[in-house]
C-alpha cells in the first residue's frame, strides 16, 4: 500500500467531491465514482466499510426515482398508475445519480481516514491553515462517530425503559424522539467541556508559535497524485461543459 501525504489526499478528495457535486452526466459521474474507488483502494481506504455505510441509502434510489418521475416531466414513462408516471427514465437516472454522488462523498471520506488525525492537522498547518482551525476540523471529524454512538446508546437505553415502539402511536413516537435529544446534547456538551479543560491543562495555545516533531514531505507519488487530481478536475469539467 502506497503511503501518501495527507495534503495530496486532501487535494484529490476536494477534486473528486467537487466533480461529484457539479457533474450532471450519468456516464461522467460513473467514471468519477470508479476513479474515487480506485484511489481509495490505492491509499488503503476501507471501501467495504464505506459501501456498508451506504446500504441504507440504496433504498433512497427508489424514493428519489419515484418522486422525480412524478414531479419531473422529462424522460420516457416506464411504469404508471392511473396515468401518473411512477417511474420514468429521467427519474431513474436522478436516483442513480444521487447514489453515485453519495458513493463519491463517502469513499472520499474513507480516503481521508487513512491518515491519522495528527497527520491531517499537520497537513492542514503546512497548507498554511492556522493550527487552531486545523485542530478544530480534526476534532470535529473525530466527534462525528462519537455522536452516532451516543445516539445509538441513548436509543437502546430508552427502549430498555420499557418503551415498546411498535405498540405506540406516531404522536408518541415523535415525543420519544424528543427525549433522545436531551442525553445526546447534554453528553456532547459535557464531552466538549472535558476536552476543552484537558486542552487548557496541556497548555493549548500557551505560546504563539508551535513547533512540530512531525514534518510532512511530498514524495514523488504525491506529486503524481496532485497532477492526476488536477488533470481529472480539468478534463471532467471540460467534458461536462461540452455535454451540456
Amino acid at each position, binding site marked *: 500500500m502506497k503511503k501518501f501525504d495527507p495534503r495530496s489526499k486532501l487535494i484529490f478528495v476536494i477534486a473528486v467531491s467537487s466533480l461529484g457535486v457539479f457533474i450532471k452526466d450519468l456516464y461522467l459521474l460513473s467514471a468519477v465514482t470508479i476513479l474515487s474507488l480506485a484511489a481509495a483502494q490505492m491509499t488503503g481506504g476501507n471501501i467495504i466499510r464505506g459501501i456498508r455505510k451506504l446500504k441504507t441509502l440504496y433504498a433512497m434510489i427508489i424514493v428519489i426515482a419515484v418522486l422525480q418521475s412524478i414531479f419531473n416531466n422529462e424522460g420516457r414513462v416506464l411504469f404508471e398508475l392511473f396515468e401518473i408516471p411512477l417511474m420514468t427514465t429521467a427519474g431513474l437516472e436522478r436516483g442513480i445519480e444521487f447514489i453515485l454522488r453519495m458513493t463519491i462523498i463517502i469513499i472520499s471520506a474513507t480516503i481521508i481516514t487513512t491518515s491519522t488525525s495528527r497527520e491531517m492537522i499537520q497537513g492542514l498547518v503546512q497548507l498554511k491553515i492556522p493550527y487552531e482551525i486545523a485542530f478544530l476540523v480534526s476534532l470535529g471529524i473525530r466527534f462525528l462517530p462519537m455522536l452516532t454512538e451516543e445516539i445509538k446508546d441513548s436509543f437502546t437505553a430508552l427502549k430498555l*425503559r420499557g*418503551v415498546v415502539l411498535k405498540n405506540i402511536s406516531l404522536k408518541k413516537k415523535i415525543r420519544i424522539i424528543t427525549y433522545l435529544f*436531551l*442525553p445526546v446534547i*447534554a453528553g456532547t456538551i459535557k464531552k466538549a467541556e472535558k476536552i476543552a479543560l484537558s486542552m487548557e491543562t496541556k497548555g493549548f495555545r500557551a505560546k504563539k508559535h508551535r513547533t512540530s516533531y512531525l514534518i510532512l514531505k511530498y514524495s514523488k507519488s504525491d506529486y503524481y497524485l496532485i497532477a492526476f487530481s488536477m488533470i481529472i478536475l480539468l478534463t471532467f469539467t471540460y467534458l461536462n461543459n461540452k455535454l451540456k
Partner: protein
Amino acid sequence: MNSQTYIEVKNMSFCYPRSQFRLEDISLQLNRNDITALVGENGSGKTTLGKILTGILKPASGEIQIGKKDIKTLDLGEIGKKVGYLFQNPEKQIFAASVYEDVSFPLEINGVSPEAIKDRTESILKELEIDHLKDKYPFNLSHGEKQRVALAGILVNETEYLILDEPTTALDTDRKELLGRMLQKLHSQGTGILIISHDEIFINKFCGRVLKMKQKGGITDEKV
C-alpha cells in the same frame, strides 16, 4: 431449571468484533428468589454479561431465556418491561428535563392512567429519598443523585428482575444501606436481582449468591 428460574443462559459464547476478549460456553440460571452478585476482576466481562442478559449485546451462539421466552423473540422494549437494567453511567438513562418527568414518562407512553402514574412515581421518589428533587433538571444533579433517579426510572416499571451495574459506586454509606434495604424489600415481593459489583461489604451483607467471572470467560458459583 427450577420454578424460580427467571433468566437462563445455555452454552452462551460472545466476542466483540476485532477483539481478543471472549466469553466461552457460559451456562447459568438466575432465580427470582435470589439476590445474586456478579463479581470478577476488571475486564473479566461482568458488564458485558449484564448487557447480553438484557439484549443490548447479541451472543455469537447459545440460548438465553427470560421468563421462559427466547430473548431473540423479544424487542428491547419488551425486555425492559421484564428486566430493569441500571447502567454503570446513570447519565445514559436520563432523558427528560425534570426528575419527575424522567421517572414517569415511560408509564405515560405505555398508557398507564394518570392517577397510577402519580402514585407510582411519587412513592418511588420518596422511597429513594429524591422527592425533593422532582422539579430539578436531572443533568445538574450529583452522580449519586443521578444514580438514584436512574434507579427510580427502572423501579417504576415494576419489573420482575433487576440487573444493577455497579449501583453503589457513587453512594455514601447511608444511601448504600438504604439501597440494600430497598433491594431486600423488592426481593421479598418477588423481584429477582443481579448486582454487578466490586463492593464486598455490600455483597456480603445483602447477596445470598455470588457468581464469579474468571479472566478466561468462565463463571463459578462461589456462595449459595
